[in-house]
């Protein structure tokens, strides 16, 4: 038994842990978003036809996360991955670290939006250090991707609709603009005014697809009758994710069940 204790002692990843609530992100785990946006930019081409994967609500379904990442690694035509939030349950550094460690096995660039669970405890501080800004956008092959933090309760703030509006205002310059936010607009975190604010921004700016997680279920429909598609991708409770095939002025959704 003493031997067992000694063995554990010498193989521990973190020799000392002071508290579960720590927010001191390891130096090598910082600024992940900026690093990956550079990798995504390097993948750009003239092609208007490409695929990306959307994986969300990974929580503690770590084995399913690995299964999904292995599957994405095998698909050469999937260029990058977008994660839709909820990488943790309690927003603890350990949860972020486990998620990030498994993500190191992904052979493609990835970007993330924050989920409501990820704000718990000191999760907001950790997210900002480990990944980067809560709201940001990037261009890819003539398309624009807008990643929007719409968490209300856990973040103690109102979603920055002014930022979203200004990001969407130049939509005419792009073939298509995709918006990604953790919570679908119909959720009870939003007041009716917030829901209307979001959905009218989508329709006024010709957003063809708004992508979400949070509900743990699958839905793909146009609930507001304005031509905007709302996609909600299931959690990793089962190894499921979506591949979005972007074409010239259109797209196709494929739900993968492993």
């Amino acid at each position, binding site marked *: 038994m003493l031997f067992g204790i000694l063995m554990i002692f010498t193989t521990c990843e973190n020799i000392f*842990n002071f508290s579960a609530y720590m927010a001191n992100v390891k130096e090598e785990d910082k600024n992940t978003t900026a690093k990956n946006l550079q990798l995504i930019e390097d993948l750009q081409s003239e092609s208007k036809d490409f695929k990306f994967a959307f994986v969300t609500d990974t929580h503690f379904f770590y084995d399913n996360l690995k299964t999904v990442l292995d599957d994405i690694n095998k698909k050469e035509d999937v260029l990058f991955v977008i994660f839709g939030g909820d990488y943790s349950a309690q927003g603890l550094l350990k949860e972020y670290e486990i998620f990030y460690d498994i993500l190191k096995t992904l052979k493609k660039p990835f970007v993330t939006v924050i989920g409501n669970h990820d704000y718990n405890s000191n999760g907001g*501080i950790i997210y900002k250090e480990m990944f980067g800004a809560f709201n940001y956008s990037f261009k890819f092959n003539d398309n624009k991707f807008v990643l929007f933090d719409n968490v209300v309760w856990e973040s103690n703030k109102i979603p920055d609709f002014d930022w979203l509006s200004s990001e969407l205002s130049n939509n005419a310059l792009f073939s298509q603009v995709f918006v990604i936010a953790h919570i679908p607009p119909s959720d009870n975190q939003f007041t009716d005014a917030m829901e209307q604010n979001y959905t009218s921004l989508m329709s006024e700016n010709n957003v063809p697809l708004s992508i979400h997680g949070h509900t743990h279920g699958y839905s793909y429909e146009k609930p507001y009758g304005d031509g905007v598609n709302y996609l909600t991708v299931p959690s990793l409770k089962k190894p499921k994710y979506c591949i979005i095939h972007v074409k010239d002025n259109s797209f196709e959704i494929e739900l993968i069940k492993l």
Partner: protein
Amino acid sequence: MNIKNICIAVFTCSFFVNTFAQDSTFVKSKLKTKTKAKEKAWYIPDYAKMQFAGNLGLLSVGAGYEVAQNVLYSELLYGFVPKSVSNAENIHLISIKNTFPIFTKQIGDFTLSPIAGFTTSVETGNNSFLILPDKYPKGYYLPSAIHFTLFAGVQVHKKFKNQNIFKGADFYVEVGTVETYLFFALTSKEVPFKDVFSSAIGVNFYF
């Protein structure tokens, strides 16, 4: 997987073995302290404790009681992590730590014992909540301020020749984990056991 099994074995042993681990020297020393203990009011602690790390704070200090000598030692601890180290708010932790010596072995002037136990700890800073804030629907989250830790380690006790201030001291080294982390390691093969365990060192000074 190998380490996983060892850990499970360590914890299982620790909870069962101490029930049976009695020998004649124990009983003798037990009788001695029992008579001694009667001279002292029940609320006076038997020892002072200071621990580094172990998910109870950068440093935790407190008072300990020999609840059942050579079977259960319980301690009330206050732990702290300053802002500069936590990279968030100051972390304040109030913990009750229960240590079980599994058996004791006399080696010269020293008494060596493998130890194991668990801690209940409440965070009282602004990093968590005990009562769900009003903005959430009922039952949306469990209280985030309470955590449990499990640990196992080795303790060395030395009686002091000069007993004017302290009668003796323990030095101990432990490896431990938080219940949430242990759940991840047990339920997922993607979470290696070594990633969820960390160490702690500490001292006890007996009055």
